[in-house]
C-alpha cells in the first residue's frame, strides 16, 4: 500500500509546497502522516512525543520544501529520513533533560538511539518494499505459512516464493548495516540538508 509516490508526483508536490499551497500540505499529510507517526513512535515509544514529532516534521517540510532534492530519491525516503533525524533528536533531548550526563549515560543513550533507528528503518523498509515481497513475508512470518503454502496462496511457484522471502529479508537486513545519518544539531528539528535521502530502499 505505502509505496513510493511516482517521481512526477514528488516534483509537483514540492512545487506546490514551495508555492505555499495549503491544500498540497493536506495531501502530503494524508499520504505520509501514518509513516511519520509510526516511525516516530518506533523511536520514541510514546504517543504524545510521536504527535509532537509529527508536528515538527510537517512544519519543517512546509517551511523547507526546497530541502528535498527529487534527484536524490523519492519524497517518501526523504520524509522518512527527516522523521528519523527529528525523532532521534527528540530522544537525545529527552535524555539530556533527565539530568547530568555521565559518559556511560551518553553511551546508553546513543545505543538506544541506534537501536530505535534500526528498528524504525526496518519498519520503513518493510513498508516500502514491493508489495509482492511484503506479502510473502507476512504470510510466512505473521501467518506462519510455510513457503509452499505461501506460494500457493500468492499464486506463484515455490521457487519464486523462496526468492521473494530471501530477497525480502536481504532488504530488511540492510536496516542494521546502514549508518545512522549524522545529527550535528541537537534540537528536535532537523535544520540542515546534509545526509538527505541517503537511504533509498532499492
Amino acid at each position, binding site marked *: *500500500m505505502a509505496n513510493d509516490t511516482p517521481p512526477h508526483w514528488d516534483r509537483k508536490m514540492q512545487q506546490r509546497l514551495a*508555492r*505555499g*499551497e*495549503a*491544500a*498540497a*500540505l*493536506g*495531501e502530503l*499529510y*494524508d499520504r505520509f*502522516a*501514518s509513516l511519520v*507517526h*509510526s516511525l516516530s*513512535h*518506533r523511536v520514541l515509544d510514546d504517543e504524545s512525543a510521536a*504527535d509532537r514529532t*509529527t*508536528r515538527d516534521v*510537517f*512544519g519543517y517540510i*512546509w*517551511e523547507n520544501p526546497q530541502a528535498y532534492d527529487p534527484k536524490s530519491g523519492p519524497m517518501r525516503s526523504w520524509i522518512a529520513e527527516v522523521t528519523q533525524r527529528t525523532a532521534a533528536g527528540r530522544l537525545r533531548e529527552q535524555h539530556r533533560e533527565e539530568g547530568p550526563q555521565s559518559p556511560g549515560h551518553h553511551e546508553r543513550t546513543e*545505543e538506544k538511539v*541506534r*537501536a*530505535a533507528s*534500526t*528498528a524504525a528503518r*526496518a*519498519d520503513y523498509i*518493510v513498508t516500502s518494499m514491493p508489495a509482492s515481497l511484503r506479502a510473502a*513475508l507476512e504470510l*510466512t*512470518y*505473521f*501467518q*506462519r*505459512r*510455510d*513457503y509452499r*503454502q*505461501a506460494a*500457493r496462496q500468492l499464486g506463484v511457484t515455490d521457487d519464486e*516464493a*523462496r*526468492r*521473494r*522471502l*530471501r*530477497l525480502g*529479508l*536481504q532488504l*530488511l*537486513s540492510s*536496516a*542494521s*548495516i546502514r549508518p545512522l545519518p549524522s545529527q550535528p544539531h541537537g534540537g528536535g528539528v532537523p535544520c540542515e540538508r546534509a545526509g538527505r535521502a541517503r537511504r533509498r530502499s532499492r
Partner: protein
Amino acid sequence: MRGPDEQGGGAGDGGADGGADCGSSPRDGSTDGGSGEGAAEGGTEGRAAQPPRIPPPRSPADDSEGAAAPHGRSAAPEDRQPPARPEPAPPAREPVQLAGQPEQFDHRVLKSLLGAWALSACSPEETAAVEGHLSECGACADEALRLRDAVALLHPEDSLDLDPALRSQVLRGCMVRRAPRVPVPEWAAPYDAEASRLDALLRDMADEEWLTPVRLRWFDARHREKRERDTTVAGVIAHLLAVDGLVASALGMPDPLDVAAASGKDRTDDGSGRAGTPHGQPHGAAETAAAGARDGVFPQPVDPAERTEQFWRADCDVLRTPAARRHWREQGHALLRTASFASDRTAGVRVPYGEFTLPVRDALLERAFECWMHAEDIATAIHYPYTAPQSTHLHHMVDLAARMLPETIARRRRAGLSGPPRRLSAAGTPGRALHLEVEGDGGGDWYIPLDSPAAAVRPGDAVAHVALDDYEFCQLAAGHVAPAEAMAGWDGDREAIEDVLFATASLSRM
C-alpha cells in the same frame, strides 16, 4: 517440528529465543534489533575461522496442509516424513560435485532456501539440509545469520489510527510557521477534513472488505416512509464520487459520469456510451474543463440518485473493487485545489441538485456532510468506530441544513405536502417562525421562517420550539431517523413542528 529435538546444530540451546520472540511482541523485535546488530558484527569477524553458530529459526510454521486454517503453534505436528536425520548433510562444495546428492539440495537450491529457512518456512528435510549445509559453507552461513537477524526486525505493523484532531493541529501549526500563499478557504475546510477521515478509514481495508454490504438509508418525505438501497463499500465510494462530481462539473472539472461512460464504452464497446462526451482522465486539471458544464448546463443527470445509479451501471467494477477510491480521492483533491484558487464569484456558482441549487461553497459543505454520513454507514458495516466531525464543522453543517429549511418548506407546500401559509407576508416583513434549538458543540439557535422563505423573522415571532441534539439533528437530516422517531423536545404549534421536522428529513437523499 519443535517437539522432536532432532534438529541438528544449535537447535537445542537456541530454540528458546527462536521460538519465544518471534511474532509475539513488538518490543522483543526492537531490542533484538539492537543486539542482532552486534551479533552480526561479531559473526563477521569469527566466521572465516570457525563455522558460525547459527541461531536456529523460530519455531516453524505448521506443516499441515490445511492451508487456510489459522495457525496456532500448539499442535505438535506429525510431520509427514519424519525429519529423518537429514540425508547426510550435504558437503557443500561446488555444485558440480554434488553428483551423489538428491538433486534438489545442491548449493544453489540451498542458498535459495535461506530466506524461507530463516523464517522457519521450510519442510523438515529442507530445514535439516540447510542446517547441514551451513556448517560447511561460509558464504551461506554468513547470509543465514544476516537473514535471521533481519527476521528479528519484523514487526507487526502498528495500525494505530491517527487522531483526526492531529491533522488539523499539524496543519494549523504549519500555517502559523509559514503563512500559506494559497490557503484552503474556510468553506472548503469541512470537506477537506471529512474526506481525509474517510480516506483514512478506507486506507487499510482489505480487498474483500470492499464487498461488505452497506445499506444506504434515507427518508422519502413525500411518501412519509424510510427508503433503503443495498450496495457495497465500493458502491458507496462510487456514490460519493458520482455526486461530488456535481460540484466538480460546476467548477469546470471533468464529470466522473462522462469518464465512466467513456471507459464503459471502451470496455464493452456496446455503443451505448455517450458520443462526444469528454473522456479525459477523471483527475485532469480543472482548466481542461468539460465544456458547457457551468451554471446548470449539464450533459449528465443532476439528480444525485440518478447519477449514482447511472454510474453504478456504467462501471460495474466500482461495486466490486477498491477502484473508485483513487478516483474519488483524486477528484476530492482537485476539488480542494480548485476551491483554493477560486474567486468569490466562483464560490458562488450555483450547483444544480435537481429540485434546488446551492452555491459551490454550500455544495461542498453538503458534500462534507454526506461524506461523514456515508463514512458512518461504512464504519457500521465493517464494525469500526467513527466519530462526529469537529464541532466547528458540525456547526456549519447544521447551519446549512437550517438555512435550507425555509426553501424546503415552501417547496413542500407547493407540492401540497404541507398546509398553506398561515400568514401571507410580503418579502422582508415579519412572519411566523420556529425556534430550532440544536444542542451540543455543533449546535446553536435558528429561527426558521414558516410562511415565506423571504420573510424576516425575529425571536418574538416564534410559534413553536424544537430542541434536539446536534447528532440527532444530523441523523434526521440524513434520513436515518424518521421525523416521528426523532428524539426531540418540542412545544407550540404542532403543525409548524411537523412541517419543520419533515422538511429536515426531506433534505435526505440516497
